[in-house]
C-alpha cells in the first residue's frame, strides 16, 4: 500500500500521498462529500491505492481522536 508521508520541502510538510503532491486533506474533501469517484477525474494521476491509503490514514486519525476524548476503548 502507498505510504502517507510528510516532508518539509513538499507541500510545506503537509501529510501527503507518497510520490505525489496530493495532500490527505485534499482527499478528505472528496471523502466527506461521498464523492470519491470524482477525484480520479480531477486528478487523473491518482490511483485507487493512493486514495485507499489516504482514507486509511484518515480513519486512523479519527480513531485516535475518538480514543483521546474517550469515545472508544483504547
Amino acid at each position, binding site marked *: 500500500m502507498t505510504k502517507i508521508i510528510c516532508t518539509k*520541502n*513538499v*507541500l*510545506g510538510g*503537509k501529510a*501527503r500521498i*507518497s*510520490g*505525489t*503532491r*496530493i*495532500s490527505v*486533506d*485534499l482527499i478528505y*474533501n*472528496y471523502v466527506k462529500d461521498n*464523492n470519491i469517484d*470524482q477525484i480520479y*477525474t*480531477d*486528478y*487523473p*494521476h491518482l490511483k485507487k491505492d493512493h486514495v485507499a491509503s489516504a482514507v486509511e490514514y484518515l480513519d486512523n486519525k479519527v480513531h485516535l481522536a475518538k480514543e483521546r476524548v474517550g469515545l472508544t476503548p483504547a
Partner: protein
Amino acid sequence: MVLRPHKFKFYLDENFPVPAGSFLKSLGHNVVSGIKILREAGLSDQKHLQACIKQKAILLAFDRDFMIDTKYSKMIASSCGIILIEATDTRPETAKKILQKVFKDITDNKIKGKICCASIDKIKYIQPEEIEEG
C-alpha cells in the same frame, strides 16, 4: 471597438484539479501543467516554483506551501506571480468561482512578483517580503 479580455499564461501545480485547467483553456488562457512539464509527480515546492519561473507563467495553487518558507521570497519576487486559491474545498467548481472573481481584478503588473490570495469573499495581494516563516 470591442475590448478583448486579457489572456494569461498559467502553470498548474500538481494539486490543481485538471477540469479547472480545462476551464481556463476554454476562456482562451494558455495553461501548462506542472506534472507534464516536470514529467514526475511528487516533486518539491522549489522545483515547481523554478519551473513556473522558467515558463514565465502565473502559478496556480491551493496550498500555502509557497508562503510558509522565506527561502521562496526571492524566487517569488522574480516570478510572474502566484494565485493562491484559499478554500478548504479544492474541487474544480470552487476554483472556477474564485478564478472568475480574480479575473475581474488582476493584471500582469498587479500580480507580477506577488502572491494573490483569493477566496470567495476577498482578494489580497501579498509582497514576497511579507512572507513569514512557519
